[in-house]
């Protein structure tokens, strides 16, 4: 490891490198933590955090230093991460990016965050996000927009979105103000922001990480996962997050493999499927070219490329926009102004007035739209035509993937049809926003593990990602192929805003 001269140089280390540095006692967990706290203070303009917890972090880092000293360090010991504000954290404000959870300090800890603390991770704070994880641009948060640390190279200085809903997590990891962060993915909320910010985002198989204590959006789709600087970091962090949990009835009781050991660098003979339906009319040629390049990289590494078909791909997004709002309308019924958070009630109001006023003021426009859609498709007379039909289509989508696994082991696709867009672009039409998730939603509907890997810059200098999709609970091969794809792509560009040097671009070796 090189000497640490710059005031923020530790923040350039990957999670794996910082772990090794801590173990070798090149620096202490408190030193590492302090550099991140400084970095966060200088990155206020990105608005990545809803709540910062520096005192908390330093207390945890001190404990980590003791554990490292006495040889009882966990797999994430002393590593300072960001926690998406969808995970309940005991005694620390948890908002889901919504006004309706004003002042909510959970009296319990989510299983995923507890697993991370048990492995030694240090919490820098709670990350900004789209309200209730509904959005693809991080422009629906009650706590304001998150700014992408990347800028276009055309000199326009346009502020770009980081993607969503895990936008605060993505922007913070990309700008080196946290070493890694948790995300959650319902239809692409880990993978799409990872692609927009040039980082790695992994959505595990549904059931791999416990949903207990994670604020619910669409329960049959929600899944937590790591957002990291590289694939090795994702492997380490997933190992800490995952595992069976008796408190989540859909948690799957399977052993958690050593994911880091999966990164063997050998993908010879693996069959990589290219689904033809992911070729969209009017898709920018650089997206298509990068996709072809990705296939070539994997072929050069010894994999076999197989053309496959997922015939119901185009129906995944419309089915998602029935299933997800239906589940959301049910899950979000709990925000009633009685048990936690905001209450709006005037003198003489009835209980119904209280409910209606609280929910009108507490929920933002996108959340209200989705609750209404969900209520409508579940309502008497429409349930069969919409909800039941969507669940049947979902079965067909899952069957497509099962069919594909007859002839391939992993799928390769783009993550998004475009690079990050401007905060002022495309806000008016909710539907245009939904289309950003067109490549991420199908695997969500089938509960499959999938990962976004930064692969290239577009012609405006913005990162583009490639997506890998694997069989259920085959995160091992997902990571193995992802690691190879990362090596072949050799993506090492950095955003214009970086913790160690503020708003100047800096090339960094791997």
């Amino acid at each position, binding site marked *: 490891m090189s000497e640490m001269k710059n005031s923020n140089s530790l923040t350039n280390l990957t999670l794996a490198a910082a772990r090794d540095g801590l173990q070798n006692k090149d620096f202490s967990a408190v030193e590492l933590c302090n550099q991140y706290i400084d970095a966060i203070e200088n990155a206020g303009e990105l608005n990545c955090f809803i709540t910062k917890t520096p005192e908390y972090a330093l207390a945890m880092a001190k404990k980590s230093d003791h554990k490292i000293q006495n040889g009882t360090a966990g797999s994430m010991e002393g590593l300072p991460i960001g926690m998406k504000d969808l995970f309940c954290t005991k005694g620390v404000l948890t908002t889901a990016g919504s006004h309706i959870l004003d002042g909510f300090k959970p009296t319990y800890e989510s299983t995923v965050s507890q697993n991370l603390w048990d492995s030694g991770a240090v919490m820098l704070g709670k990350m900004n996000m789209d309200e209730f994880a509904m959005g693809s641009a991080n422009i629906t948060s009650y706590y304001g927009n998150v700014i992408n640390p990347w800028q276009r190279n055309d000199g326009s200085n346009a502020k770009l979105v980081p993607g969503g809903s895990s936008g605060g997590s993505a922007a913070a990891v990309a700008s080196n103000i946290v070493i890694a962060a948790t995300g959650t993915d319902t239809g692409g909320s880990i993978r799409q922001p990872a692609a927009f910010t040039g980082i790695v985002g992994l959505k595990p198989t549904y059931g791999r990480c416990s949903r207990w204590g994670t604020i619910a959006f669409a329960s049959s789709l929600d899944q937590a996962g790591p957002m990291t600087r590289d694939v090795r970091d994702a492997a380490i962090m997933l190992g800490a997050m995952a595992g069976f949990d008796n408190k989540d*009835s859909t948690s799957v009781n399977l052993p958690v493999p050593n994911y880091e050991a999966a990164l063997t660098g050998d993908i010879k003979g693996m069959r990589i499927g290219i689904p033809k339906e992911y070729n969209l009319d009017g898709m920018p040629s650089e997206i298509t070219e990068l996709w072809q390049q990705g296939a070539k990289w994997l072929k050069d590494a010894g994999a076999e490329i197989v053309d496959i078909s997922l015939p119901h791909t185009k129906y995944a997004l419309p089915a998602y926009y029935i299933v997800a709002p239906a589940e959301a*309308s049910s899950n979000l019924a709990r925000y009633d102004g009685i048990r936690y958070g905001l209450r709006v009630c005037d003198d003489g109001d009835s209980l119904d007035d209280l409910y209606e006023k609280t929910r009108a003021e507490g929920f933002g426009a996108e959340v209200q*739209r989705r609750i209404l859609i969900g209520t409508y498709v579940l309502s008497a007379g429409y349930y069969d035509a919409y909800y039941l039909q969507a669940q049947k289509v979902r079965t067909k989508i899952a069957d497509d993937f099962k069919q594909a696994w007859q002839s391939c082991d992993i799928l390769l696709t783009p993550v998004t049809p475009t690079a990050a867009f401007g905060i002022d672009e495309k806000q008016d039409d909710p539907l245009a926003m939904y289309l950003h998730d067109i490549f991420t939603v199908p695997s969500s509907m089938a509960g499959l593990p999938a990962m976004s890997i930064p692969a290239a810059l577009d012609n405006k200098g913005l990162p583009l990602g490639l997506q890998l999709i694997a069989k259920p609970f085959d995160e091992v091969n997902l990571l193995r192929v992802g690691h190879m794809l990362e090596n072949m792509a050799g993506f090492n560009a950095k955003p214009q805003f970086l913790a160690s040097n503020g708003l100047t671009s800096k090339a960094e070796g791997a």
Partner: protein
Amino acid sequence: MSLDKTSVAKIAKLSRIRINDDKQDEMASDLNNIMGFVEQLSQVNVEGVEPMTSVIEMMQRQRDDIISDGGYADDILENGPATDMGFFTVPKVVE
């Protein structure tokens, strides 16, 4: 079918979200836009297809029918916007 202002008002009532009169047209237009998009699902032949109930093929776990959790009313009440003597309080419901 197309949603009008009246149906928006009805759905809003079912959802317990107050949407004022002057916002109902805009909401109707947004909802119709989305419903128009999802309409294409009716093209899919789903004859004989079972609706999905779980993405992961698994048996629902069973557990012993015993009390395994609870006994912390104070924790539950802690975040209540209005509580009194171990209860959440609400506006008068019965006249």
